[in-house]
């Protein structure tokens, strides 16, 4: 895993930590961007961690591209000696799987899908080797997910499930992107899950919807008053299946301004996770649910 540096025009540096996705690559990208933020390099205007890469934007009138590159390489050698721990947050995200709204959408765009006769859940369950949709939902909502990137559009989390590679859910994107996706749809493309923060175009498989707002540009939602976006890279998400009644009850709380996400502060250790994903996840869920 040797990072590859490239200039993006005269005002960005793009760093591919690894060609392929892994928790190690994500962790390195996150720790590199944290070091850049802490080092307060003059002229840096954007620091963007991504799944297995990151990007820095800078003002070349304040720091030359070659000096900026040298700074990043210097920080990289320091970051690789890091201790691989992260003080972060874990959130429970309720999901109404196979809900009527995403179902309506996925049927409307069926001719753009690999499998015109079924649903996205049926397709994803089958190609990932699950006997039934409920088994697939159990896997999807069983182990937690890292927010490995926030972006595409405002506040959209990319999610990478915290399981061994052979257990990763993989699904291709739609053959042609949809022009519509309901807000707060829980989707999946490649090895990444996501929650669509706004209504709009998209190509991921559609699994369900969460009642929990994650982006509020008007900052009316109680827990989004301080900042309009809920997630940041490094957060951890645990999906919790809910039925129609559970969804409706949550929506009622959201509308009344009384919905509060279940969230706890946790410490995550990459080395611990490498040694035993199951034990690490058990500990994280224990922290979330106070066990």
């Amino acid at each position, binding site marked *: 895993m040797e990072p590859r540096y490239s200039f993006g025009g005269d005002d960005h540096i*793009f760093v591919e930590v690894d060609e392929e*996705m892994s928790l190690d690559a994500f962790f390195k990208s996150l720790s590199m961007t944290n070091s850049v933020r802490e080092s307060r390099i003059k002229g840096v205007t954007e*620091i963007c961690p991504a799944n297995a890469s990151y990007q820095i934007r800078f003002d070349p009138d304040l720091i030359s591209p070659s000096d900026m590159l040298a700074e990043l390489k210097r920080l990289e050698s320091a970051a690789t000696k890091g201790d691989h721990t992260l003080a972060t947050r874990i959130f429970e995200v309720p999901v109404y799987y196979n809900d009527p709204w995403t179902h309506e959408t996925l049927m409307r765009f069926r001719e753009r899908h690999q499998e015109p006769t079924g649903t996205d859940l049926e397709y994803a369950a089958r190609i990932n080797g699950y006997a039934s949709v409920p088994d697939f939902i159990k896997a999807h909502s069983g182990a937690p997910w890292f927010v490995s990137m926030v972006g595409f559009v405002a506040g959209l989390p990319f999610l990478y499930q915290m399981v061994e590679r052979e257990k990763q859910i993989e699904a291709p994107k739609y053959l042609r992107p949809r022009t519509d996706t309901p807000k707060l749809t829980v989707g999946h493309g490649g090895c990444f899950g996501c929650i669509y923060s706004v209504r709009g175009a998209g190509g991921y498989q559609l699994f369900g919807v969460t009642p929990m707002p994650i982006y509020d540009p008007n900052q009316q939602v109680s827990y989004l008053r301080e900042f309009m976006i809920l997630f940041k890279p490094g957060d951890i998400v645990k999906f919790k299946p809910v039925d129609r009644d559970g969804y409706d009850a949550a929506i009622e709380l959201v509308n009344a301004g009384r919905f509060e996400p279940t969230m706890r502060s946790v410490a995550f250790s990459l080395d611990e996770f490498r040694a035993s994903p199951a034990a690490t996840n058990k500990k994280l869920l224990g922290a979330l649910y106070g066990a």
Partner: protein
Amino acid sequence: MGLEILKPGLSTTVQDLGRPGYYHLGIPESGGMDKSSLAAANLLVGNPEGAAVLEAVFLGPEIRFDRDAVVAVSGAHLPPKVDGVEQPSWTSFAVKSGQTLSFGFLKSGARAYIAVAGGVDVPLVLGSRSTYPLGALGGFEGRALKAGDRVKIGTQSRDAKPGRSVPAKLRIEGSGTTELRVLPGLYWHRLTEEAGKTFFEDVWKVAPEADRIGYRFRGGRALSFAPRKQPFGAGSDPSNIVDSCYPYGSIQVPGGTEPIVLHHDAVSGGGYFMLGTVISADMDLIGQLQPHQPTRFVKVDMETALKARAERKAAAGRLKESLS
């Protein structure tokens, strides 16, 4: 109050110099696509160069003023009219309370900047008044203007006066075949040697799908990819990568067919390879390209990119000096 929008035009939004600092959360910088013209319009009416203005694309709005104002229009050649009487572009003019500002047909360019002395007064959101419609953020209620909207104008400076003009040689007006200078990089190595040549040889045309998020081009030969086993998480198409950030100005080519250059309302990341990035000095040019406009991409190195940036900065300085 200030302005009453009688007709909104095709898509007229409030823009200033943008909202940097939140790209890592998917909020793009937004701001005028042609920032030099935006700054010029402001300076003409005595505003700070980064005051909020209206950006109109292809078709101008119709606006009734309910107070006396000084106005200037720069950028695309979209002739302004006051109560039907044509006014010069790149020149400040007076609009009296009760008069209507409208526009003739577009003669060149794509985006006109309408500055009003005092600036468009919408709330600052994350440090900027620019509109980001996809996120319903900033500007006027997070969206393009609609008929019936009433838009406030700030207090004009004592410096606001009609008849101030940008000298003809300092105006930025595009025509003919446009050249966009590109620094190859990012995932350039994904292309075959052949594709790396044809991309720069071919004349491309701006596609109808060209907006503030990105400009799409078509008409050049399809690009072929260097063979590789797709890495885990990247997706099966050879143009796919593990979802990464997208630099402003970066050129992605989904499926190898139609290049898309991302602009100030960019999607901040995704799973398509990028072959390089339009240099910062040429970003304004993109905002003035019309659909079907022939365009060539020109390969440059970093030294050329930085020199072009310095020249553009010097030109902006000369323009500012000519108006002070």
